């Protein structure tokens, strides 16, 4: 038991936070919940059934702007939080972070240490499907993704649920010049996903929220997984410790994967 409700209440009692981002019981499974005072912490829960990545709310200025924030952070959310620190999106002194064991992680170093000591939550289903697609011929793979992505109607739930998609203006909404045609069509949908996953290279935590929230069930987390695997293979090691794959350039970078 992590006693998350009590811990959040204690923070309010000591006047240390303005809002606590956690989970509460939902219609079928737990959902995000926000406590803005000690009384509202009663409903907070935090266990293995709590899916959905709460780190997404840490960059929402209308919700947390200028506030001291407590948060219940899953393993994946912690990876995202570490990355958001690296991208200068968060301030340590404004955040009270609790892991699933109920332990407060007071600094980026503590988060990193916890992540390195705790096994990455494995998801055999993802690996199985990933390997299945990797084993396909190029033609089969093209058909698979063409079929899947033609279903996309561009609701952008994948973008909205992702903690790393915090741009105030997304590339798909830039219209001077218009890089990507905004209406839904197989080619446009593909362009959108290619852009999305390229922006995730070396930043994605592998939480799978993008596909979990897709209303039409496209397994788009496999695309981010692919880019993650490519990042690991070509740039290696602890991706979060080095520059972002997309934005860091070194003259001796390998370019073998481009062609």
């Amino acid at each position, binding site marked *: 038991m992590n006693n998350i409700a009590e811990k959040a209440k204690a923070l309010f009692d000591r006047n240390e936070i303005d809002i606590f981002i956690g989970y509460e019981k*939902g*219609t*079928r*499974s737990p*959902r*995000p*919940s*926000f406590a803005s005072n000690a009384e509202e912490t009663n409903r907070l829960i935090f266990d293995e059934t709590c899916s*959905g990545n709460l780190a*997404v*709310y840490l960059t929402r200025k*209308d*919700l947390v702007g200028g506030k001291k924030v407590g948060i219940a952070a899953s393993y994946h959310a912690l990876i995202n939080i570490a990355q958001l620190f690296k991208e200068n999106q968060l301030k340590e002194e404004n955040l009270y972070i609790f892991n699933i064991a109920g332990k407060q992680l007071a600094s980026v170093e503590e988060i990193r240490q916890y992540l390195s000591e705790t096994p990455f939550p494995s998801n055999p289903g993802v690996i199985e499907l990933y390997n299945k697609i990797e084993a396909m011929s190029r033609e089969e793979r093209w058909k698979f993704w063409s079929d899947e992505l033609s*279903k996309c*109607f*561009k*609701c*952008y*739930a994948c*973008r*909205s*649920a992702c903690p790393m998609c915090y741009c105030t203006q997304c590339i798909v*909404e830039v219209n001077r010049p218009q890089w990507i*045609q*905004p*209406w*839904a*069509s197989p080619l446009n949908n593909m362009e959108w996903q290619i852009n999305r996953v390229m922006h995730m290279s070396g930043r994605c935590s592998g939480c799978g*929220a993008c596909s*979990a*929230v897709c*209303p*039409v*069930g496209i397994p788009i987390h496999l695309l981010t997984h692919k880019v993650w695997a490519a990042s690991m293979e070509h740039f290696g090691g602890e991706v979060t410790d080095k520059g972002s794959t997309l934005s860091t350039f070194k003259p001796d970078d390998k370019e073998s994967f481009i062609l």
Partner: protein
Amino acid sequence: MNKYISKQSLTNFLAKIKEDGKRIFAPVAKGSKTDFEWIESVNEISLEHIQTTQSAKSITFPRTEKLFSYKKTEGDITLQDYTPNQLETVVFGIHPCDAAGFRPLGSIFNWDTPDKHYNERKKQTILISVSCTQCDEYCFCTSVNGSPGNTEGSDILLTPIKEGYLAEIITDRGKELTDQYGNLFEPAPEIDKEEYLAKVPVHFNVNEITEKLSGLFNNEELWKKQSERCLGCGACAFVCPTCACFDIQENDKGNSGERLRCWDSCGFSLFTLHTSGHNPRSTQSQRWRQRLMHKFSYMPDRLSVVGCTGCGRCSRACPVDMNICEQLTTI
């Protein structure tokens, strides 16, 4: 007029319809999801689901559609009007909540200027619905003037009974179609249809909600609290049978191009962003307010129809469980 059709005869009925040149849009199961597709064979149809992922609104309001095309020549420009030339289409297996959804959808597209594209498509569409024998905790049709056996909007409504279906023939178009294949239908048995329908609990009185909402526009605290976890994606709007917001886009190919209409959502921040940079709905709480107000206050006031049929899709599709029925009952 009521008739009876056996399961086998229904299969034959649909096969004949297809054979005789109509297209059929029907639920097809893929993995854990069922959605409407153009079917090649009647065997593809699945009726096991409680609700399809999307509604069938795309039949009259496609996610992307051409409005007109243009060509530039030196000193001149020619416009080519576009009228959808849709083949006669049978939408089979929609539930009463979806059939009823075409009324609010049609009211929006005929509010001021009748929308040629919507109306042309609707004219070519025949709705053969199937009553609900099962429901889940997201269904609330009975709270918004509907029911699992509601005939509104359907041309024919089939209710599963014993080994076949009670067929209620509701419109002239429905009658025409059943007359055409009259030998497949039998006289209706004496039954109480209600006994075969799902029991969908009533959660609220929609007129009371409309009344309540009329005074809540300025209650910022309420909308802020309600919308806190909303991520601002468009999943709810895109799966909704009555959401009709659209964007106008230009598929510009230099000296020629097409003007397109494509789905949009009032939940997106860009939806109301002015060229000046001003956004009258700059926060998610204002956009959530708009969603509820439009469906449950503005539409009843202006179009005399509730903009929601209780299908529950928005709640099922929501990444963060913005359960609309729960939100309405807790106002």
